[in-house]
């Protein structure tokens, strides 16, 4: 091959073989299927609106979410100047909801990102190298999974001390096994594929095989899992805050707001109801989007 040979091969077969299987690009195909799923699109739209609203919070309201105004406390819905009323310290509910959305959504995505990072790393290494590391990592993950999620998160916070950051770390750790298992399972089947063997035969390094060939092919189940998991993480983070283990008052966070309102349920139910509904909306929209994404990525899974 060094001497630039003229490989002249008769190609009458080119004609016979040229009826290629024309298919759309897989990414476009997924996008097309997702767009057809109206419920998923609705979920995605709600999510985008929530994110945009919380990002634009300073422009949408002139109140400060944390400034107490005892003169206007416990105003009901529809009060002049406070469309969604005020809480027991006279803070504007709409403002607090918008600012709270920032924290809740950010925590949800960050916690998932952290859990995903470590979960993928553990899953890749365990599934690819098998052997001792696999046994060790999987037993550790079995131990993590043996505890109820919330209990484990509370235990970790108890060790780290309460606070928003620690709560996020705790729910991230709780989420790791989920990803590690998914990734490991996928990698176990992918590593036996012939195109991985081909890379080995070509002399590719393990790092190259793992990140250039295995990870991209393992991505679709991870994406679905992550989308559905963001909702769970938001609930978990709010739950921790509600219990006083996560975000601390007076921070505008949905879980904290829920907790603030629990003493005023009979006089001013909107203080708890509004953040509760906000959590419900965001989590629902994420689940709808996640389900749609799963169906779009793998139509065979659709029931």
């Amino acid at each position, binding site marked *: 091959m060094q001497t630039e040979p003229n490989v002249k*091969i008769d190609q009458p*077969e080119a004609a*016979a*073989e040229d*009826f290629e299987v024309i298919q759309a690009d897989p990414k476009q195909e997924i996008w097309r299927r997702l767009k057809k799923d109206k419920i998923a699109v609705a979920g995605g739209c709600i999510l985008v609106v929530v994110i945009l609203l919380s990002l634009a919070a300073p422009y949408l309201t002139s109140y400060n979410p944390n400034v107490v105004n005892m003169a206007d406390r416990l105003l009901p819905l529809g009060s002049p100047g406070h469309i969604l009323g005020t809480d027991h310290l006279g803070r504007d509910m709409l403002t607090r909801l918008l600012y709270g959305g920032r924290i809740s959504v950010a925590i949800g995505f960050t916690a998932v990102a952290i859990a995903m990072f470590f979960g993928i790393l553990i899953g890749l290494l365990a599934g690819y190298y098998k052997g001792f590391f696999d046994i060790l990592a999987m037993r550790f993950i079995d131990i993590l999974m043996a505890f109820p999620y919330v209990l484990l998160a509370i235990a970790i916070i108890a060790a780290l001390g309460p606070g928003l950051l620690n709560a996020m770390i705790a729910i991230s750790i709780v989420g790791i096994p989920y990803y590690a298992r998914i990734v490991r399972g996928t990698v176990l089947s992918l590593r036996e594929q*012939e195109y991985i063997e081909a890379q*080995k035969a070509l002399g590719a390094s393990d790092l*190259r095989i793992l990140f250039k060939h295995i990870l*991209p*092919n393992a991505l679709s189940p991870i994406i679905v899992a992550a989308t559905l998991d963001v909702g769970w993480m938001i609930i978990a983070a709010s739950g921790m805050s509600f219990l006083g283990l996560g975000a601390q008052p007076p921070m505008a966070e949905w879980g904290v707001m829920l907790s603030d309102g629990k003493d005023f349920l009979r006089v001013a139910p909107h203080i708890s109801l509004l953040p509760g509904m906000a959590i419900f909306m965001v989590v629902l929209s994420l689940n709808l989007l996640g389900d749609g994404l799963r169906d779009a990525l793998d139509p065979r899974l659709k029931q």
Partner: protein
Amino acid sequence: MSADHYLEVINLKKYFPVNENLFGRNRSWLKAVDGVTFYLNRGETMGLVGESGCGKSTLGRLIINLLPPTGGEVFLENQNIFDFTGEKRKELRRKMQIIFQDPYGSLNPRMNIGDIIAEPLYIHNLARGNSVQKRVKQLLDYVGLSAYHINRYPHEFSGGQRQRVGIARALAVEPELIVCDEPVSALDVSIQSQVLNLLKDLQQELDLTYLFIAHGLNVVKHVSTRVGVMYLGKLVEITGSDELYDNPLHPYTKALLSAIPIPDPKLKRERILLSGDVQSPIDPPPGCRFNARCPVAFELCTQEEPELREYSKGHYVACHRLGRDAH
């Protein structure tokens, strides 16, 4: 070991553990390849035939060092390939390549054709920048695909075209030896001959040596100069491809040959029908592996394993019957 052979395989073994118990100790072994010895000359095509599960593919993977052997040696130009580590091993990868059976599973579905063929160039630093594209186009040209296929994804191609991409990828590192692991068995009959002819043409142009694995003798006859017949992890007969058809000596080879259909309804031929199932390769009993199904087996066959011996020049057979009486 004679020095004039390009590749020497000596007593190569690969056992897979089965039935691992709780403590990781195995109670039994699957003997996929059990003491295989043969050689390859430079520039020739050696066919390897045998039933499914007889260890052909495992043997092919052992030879290109994709699997660690349980025992035995493979010498490439008088160097034991299992001694190679690190950089030398990576260099070895450039000399030996493999073409896979399943054209649907052997290409990464997330990469386009250009990237798939460029991978080996990047791995071995064979080309950079603009020369990558040039080389990829040249390789596509070798295998009869055109440059406009570069940005397409594997799922847009037919089986035969994918197999061509697989061949181009293997050629990218300028190998000397290519293990063809049933490269045409997944293809339509009309496409099979095209790919076989492509492989033959490439062999002439690029001076390649092939180990051609197949499960049918007709494909092997078309391409090989010599043929090895495998049965349950053992080579039972090796000889020139014409000699094999004219004068098969091992009873298993005879049975295989009689199973090739002849496209002539008037021609009557005695078919040797093998009775019984293939033995399990897990912990095989002593004696010849074939004895349970062999029409001419006798006492010795259940006691002692026959060795591969040269009966006439270049014709190796492992059978106790030979030399005792004509059959």
